[in-house]
């Protein structure tokens, strides 16, 4: 019970919330605006983080170039997924997207020479005899920030707090940009395609192009989340990219009200606390269960909260009810 009292734990929760928030923002563009159901979003995170890690560790790339390459590979992943399935009916995209992220994870798991396989990024063969780390450049920044935070926060200021601040600044910037993008006529066309293809097509809009662009933009944002994920966990494992991660993002999106970005940050924090906080449900009646059982219960509790929310507020915390229920 002591961890709950430590500020470090809450900083950790906030940081993870922020990363999940970025990750979910990618889905928001795809689903909230374009009505595209992507269940393989975590695959983009896997592609960007592993690309970055491999380029830095095994090929000695500059971190920034590696990170940009990672995001570019996630974008390519989205383009590939979109080009192959977006011309088909919507449900095909959803099904193939799950398969896509599972294939990415499977390939990572089984490509020991390239990705370190089951042992994760620690087992990537480093260039020379360096330690297989990809966080050095980033750590320099984090420690610089920490040193400037110490006079304000005292000893609470640490690497994690610096990380949390950068994550939330990034989320803030991305939220701002995306909310602007969603006010363009591009987004208006995409919103139309959410309901119907015939009308926008008959008005000269290439529905496929709009959808493909939405998927790629969402993948780029998912890729950015992947870079932050990698920097936060400091060593990658294929298990970081299970399909459940995509569903966590779906939970956040539904909580926030998919059609608007404004509730997303709060929903992400809500999810973070639910996810992290349920760890402390050690009191009766939860005391009957051991910790692995409790971790399953955590997912159940999150599920129950979601069900209740969807019944009471189908539009999410901040969504517009009409936009959800108009038929």
């Amino acid at each position, binding site marked *: 019970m002591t961890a709950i009292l430590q500020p470090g734990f809450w900083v950790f929760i906030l940081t993870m919330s922020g990363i999940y928030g970025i990750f979910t923002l990618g889905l928001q563009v795809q689903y909230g605006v374009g009505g595209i159901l992507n269940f393989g979003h975590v695959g983009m995170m896997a592609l960007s983080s592993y690309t970055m890690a491999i380029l830095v560790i095994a090929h000695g790339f500059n971190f920034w170039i590696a990170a940009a390459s990672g995001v570019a590979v996630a974008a390519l992943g989205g383009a590939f997924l979109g080009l192959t399935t977006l011309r088909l009916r919507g449900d095909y995209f959803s099904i193939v997207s799950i398969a896509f992220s599972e294939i990415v994870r499977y390939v990572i798991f089984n490509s020991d020479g390239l990705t370190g396989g089951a042992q994760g990024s620690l087992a990537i063969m480093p260039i020379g005899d360096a330690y297989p780390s990809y966080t050095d450049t980033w750590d320099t920044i984090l420690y610089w920030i920490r040193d400037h935070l110490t006079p304000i926060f005292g000893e609470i200021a640490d690497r994690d707090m610096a990380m949390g601040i950068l994550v939330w600044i990034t989320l803030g910037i991305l939220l701002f940009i995306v909310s602007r993008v969603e006010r363009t006529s591009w987004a*208006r066309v995409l919103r139309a395609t959410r*309901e119907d293809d015939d009308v926008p097509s*008959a*008005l000269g809009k290439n*529905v496929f192009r709009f959808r493909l662009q939405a998927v790629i933009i969402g993948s780029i944002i998912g890729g950015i989340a992947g870079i932050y994920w990698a920097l936060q966990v400091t060593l990658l494992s294929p298990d970081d990219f299970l399909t459940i991660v995509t569903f966590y993002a779906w939970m956040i999106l539904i909580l926030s009200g998919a059609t608007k970005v404004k509730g997303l940050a709060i929903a992400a924090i809500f999810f973070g606390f639910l996810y992290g906080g349920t760890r402390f449900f050690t009191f009766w009646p939860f005391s009957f269960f051991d910790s692995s059982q409790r971790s399953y219960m955590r997912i159940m509790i999150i599920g129950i909260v979601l069900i209740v929310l969807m019944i009471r507020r189908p539009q999410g915390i901040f969504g517009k009810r009409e936009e959800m229920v108009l038929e």
Partner: protein
Amino acid sequence: MNNLILEVNDVAVAFGGIKAVNGATMSVEVGSVTSVIGPNGAGKTTLFNLISGATKPDSGTILFQGFEIQKLLPHKIAGRGIVRTFQGAKVIKRLSVLENLMLGAQNNPGDNLINFFNPRARNAFEKQARDHAMALLKQVGIERFANDYAGILSGGQRKLLDLARALMAEPVMLLLDEPFAGVNPTLVEKLLEVLHALRTEHHLTFLLVEHDLETVMNISDRVVVMAEGQVIADGLPNSIYENQAVVDAYLGTRKLK
């Protein structure tokens, strides 16, 4: 014969066993009003779907301004100036009435993501398009709903929205699938005036499906009669009444007053 804007040559399409359009041939003259009539299930809407590219023909060719368009995707055909409305009207329910119209604006720089970084061009276009859209809404008499979700509109109001949205797309040729069905008579009069003005001022060409024979006879330069997927007659409005096949298939014993 280069005053033909549209030529449909021996076009056929089948859905499963149903030959919805079965070797239809017809044409439309530049600047004319051509009406397609015929019994329910004759293939009129399917013909529109073929012309607008929503359905691909199994055989036959469709020429618009001399270019073959039967293989083009719908948005390409729309880009060439063929804009349609839908039987029963289709509106995007979760966009506002005004936003529905704005969808029709052509060459909107804001549709291109690159122009996200060019807000000046985007905003200037939006402003102009919005003014145009409001004027069109006024013309069809639904401007008071501009900022409501289109999903709240009644059936007739949706038709008006569908029509205004098609006009927003600056068509060269308008395909109207039963534009007046379910619209009250005084408004039909008004819409006819609007269409007439478009025709004289902008030289629009109209192809329409309509069941109300009186309206058809009054506004059409030519009438095409379809039955069972084929064109069974094509001529001046009055000649239709003298055609025995048409009387048998569609008109029955009714007479124009």
